[in-house]
């Protein structure tokens, strides 16, 4: 009896131990999933919390006197003369008018810095749009300097010692006076969505990089999609099972895992130095990214073609179609949703890629919005990299905001892929 009870006690104890181990193991698993999701959450939280303020920008309302004698002294009416007028001076005069007590030269210079150096261009654009304003005094909202913007948004705190912040006590007093007057206000930041890069954070925008990304991806799509689909069809439907095919297959699988920076080296050595294509151009970037995404598209395409059941092919062959007709009239249309899904995922990968583009000179500082495939351009992820490296405080929020824009595009592309898969998926 005792023997038996000790035995069952032993078993019970070991069962307890084993069940505890079971619970622990399960907990580890849950912990791992929770950790991964927490990282995702933290990442998004960091980006959004740092970046949402960039969608607003501080503007200052200045009473500008558009002096006819300044703008068009000889009364010529020539827009070229108008464009050359000293608009910076008008903004300065207006600031002096708002704060007539400021007399010292250094203080005046600090005062002028409340408005962005881009204010002159904004005034010029206003005059070009409304020539009637010349000779009148009008209240105009112009972009404020990035330091003012940072102060208004609370990133530069007023309660630290004066020599440790970029806004002096005097400037703080001016800003407070302007705010009390209703002349300083945060508004939706249109510059961020319409401008190219700039050294001044308040004048920098993502539009140039977005246009560069667009042209680059257009080249990538135009090359990678037809080539990828053709290769997938050939390898899946036509290729004889021989050594060459095997070599090609191993090659494609390996190419998919080659570090992206190596493709950049290829682009630099072959496309730039050997063929002599232009540096920093979306054309070269697109070709490099096409080579990089090609394996993704081929692999996805082959999987999609493989999933079309053989009965479809046999039926078509039985009705007298040639092998090409079978593929192009029946198999490919049925496989298209899968092929497109793979293509979109490859394109999303290409949109987020940075390293190979650094190699072919797409990191240059480019202010102009690119208008074609051979204009110097940069792309969204490279713009993020460049801004992340900039020392100005205001670029931190702009970097995060650019990341939000990039992630927005990526999520849109991925949702399209999911939607395509859901809508056209067929169970055979």
């Amino acid at each position, binding site marked *: 009896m005792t023997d038996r009870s000790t035995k069952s006690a032993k078993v019970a104890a070991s069962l307890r131990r084993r069940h505890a181990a079971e619970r622990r193991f399960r907990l580890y698993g849950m912990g791992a999933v929770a950790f991964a999701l927490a*990282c995702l959450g933290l990442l998004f939280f960091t980006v959004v919390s740092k970046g949402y303020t960039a969608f607003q920008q501080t503007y200052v309302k200045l009473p500008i006197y558009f002096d006819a004698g300044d703008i068009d002294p000889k009364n010529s009416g020539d827009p070229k003369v108008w464009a050359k007028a000293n608009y910076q001076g008008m903004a300065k005069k207006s600031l002096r008018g708002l704060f007539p007590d400021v007399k010292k030269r250094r203080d005046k210079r600090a005062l002028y810095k409340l408005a962005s150096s881009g204010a002159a261009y904004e005034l010029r654009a206003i005059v070009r749009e409304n020539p009637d304003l010349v000779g009148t005094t009008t209240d105009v909202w112009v972009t404020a300097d990035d330091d003012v913007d940072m102060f208004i948004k609370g990133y530069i705190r007023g309660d630290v010692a004066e020599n440790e912040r970029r806004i002096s006590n005097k400037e703080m007093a001016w800003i407070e006076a302007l705010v009390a007057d209703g002349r300083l206000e945060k508004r939706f930041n249109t510059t961020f969505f319409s401008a190219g890069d700039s050294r001044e954070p308040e004048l920098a925008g993502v539009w140039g990089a977005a246009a560069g990304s667009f042209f680059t991806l257009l080249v990538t799509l135009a090359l990678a999609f037809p080539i990828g689909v053709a290769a997938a069809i050939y390898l899946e439907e036509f290729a004889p099972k021989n050594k060459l095919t095997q070599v090609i297959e191993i090659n494609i699988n390996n190419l998919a895992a080659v570090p992206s920076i190596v493709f950049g080296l290829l682009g630099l050595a072959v496309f730039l130095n050997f063929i002599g294509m232009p540096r920093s151009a979306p054309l070269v970037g697109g070709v490099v990214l096409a080579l990089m995404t090609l394996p993704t598209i081929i692999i996805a395409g082959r999987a999609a073609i493989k999933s079309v059941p053989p009965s479809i092919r046999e039926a078509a062959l039985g009705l007298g179609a040639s092998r090409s007709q079978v593929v192009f009239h029946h198999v490919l249309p049925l496989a298209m949703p899968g092929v497109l899904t793979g293509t979109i995922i490859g394109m999303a990968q290409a949109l987020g890629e940075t390293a190979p583009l650094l190699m072919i000179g797409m990191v240059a500082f480019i202010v102009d919005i690119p208008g074609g495939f051979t204009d110097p351009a940069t792309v969204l992820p490279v713009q993020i990299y460049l801004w992340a490296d900039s020392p100005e405080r205001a670029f931190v929020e702009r970097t995060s905001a650019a990341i939000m824009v990039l992630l927005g595009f990526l999520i849109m592309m991925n949702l399209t892929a999911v939607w395509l898969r859901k809508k056209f998926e067929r169970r055979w």
Partner: protein
Amino acid sequence: MGKADDVTVLLLMVILLGLSAWAFHSGRRQALVLSNGRARTLHSLPEYYGFYLALCCATPALGGFVVWAVFEQQIIEWFTIAAISPGVRLDDPAKLDLLLNDIRNLANGNIISRAVDPDLQAAADYYLGLRDLSFVALAAGMLALSGAGVVLGWVNLKPAFRARAWVEQFVHFVMIGCSIIAVLTTFGIVMSLLFESLRFFQMVSPIEFFFGLEWSPQTALRDDQVASSGRFGAVPLFAGTLLISLIAMCIAAPVGLMAAIYMAEYAPVRLRAVAKPMLEILAGIPTVVYGFFAALTVAPLFREWGAAGGFLISSESALAAGIVMGIMIIPFVSSLSDDVITAVPRSLRDGSFGLGATKSETIRKVVIPAALPGIVGGLLLAMSRAIGETMIVVMAAGLAANLTANPFQAVTTVTVQIVTLLIGDQEFDSAKTLAAFALGLLLFCTTLVLNVIALYVVNKYRERYD
């Protein structure tokens, strides 16, 4: 851009497309005409005669365009050099390059590096004239080629002509060509890396490169400069790469594997339906975003923690870069492991349960051992990814090549050095620039070996339960 800018080239392509459409239409009609309205007497459907003629029209012109695009620049520059008046001609290739650059910039209306003299202006005008001429030649050549193609194709148009076989054969060859592009890419990578690396090893001995302990690629301009020793010992770079990749794997391997086990074996369907796409999002985030996260959030955080704990953590520590890289690789490891774990057949699990094992015992003692080759393959692929990862380390790891195993210090990696050596303008005869290609070759070979082993292991194992 002279005349051959995007818009005009696009216009040329549209014209070619229109011509091909016209060729298709007339080919199809001609076939019907030849058959006297009885399409049955034709060998192929009339569309195939149309496709045949369209291909005859477009292919030679496109071929001509490709040849032009590749060689135009060289030929124009060659002519320009030949035409430069003897006073400007230089024998030094570097100075000649500079001169050509100035001519190009002057022609494009950009700022140039020297005073504009009449000779230079004449050369620039000549250069511009050549560009215009070359574009006109291109347009005329393409039209002539497509015209000749149509004429030659037209001669063949007979009811007995096997148009379908011809078109299908053509498409077949195009598809073979597309498949071979992947091989050509690999070939191009190997050749360009090998070629530049060989030039590098003519300047720097391979022994120094592979075994040297000091890396400072700045070559001295004068002999008495102290800081610029121009040493190319790559060992600190390998060590740094390995350190950061190992830290990454220490995060990614356990978390990824446990996440995969939980998702495959335990997770309720609804949790799985939510968590799996979330992990896919984590995999789809661009690396530059992780780099930003590492450099601006994680690294300062670690430095603060270190300061609070009383020891120094560099703001470019290997730890921060490694951990963020680990987070990036988690979904990669978990999705690969998930695949192999779910591929283990039900019968193995049932056998284990029948013998009284708990679920975790079954997983640890039956499922994981059965899936081990696949998991190892996945981990190897992940490791190769960590080694080749660029943006995170460029943004969050250091530039100084410290030879250390201390994760709190800054180290540099192979990819960081490639990027720093090649960003900006480079001259292609300095060891500094060429070193990047030697590093690239090394990176390529390392990841290739890892990938080949991993793919072999994964493939070999996958077949066992099918």
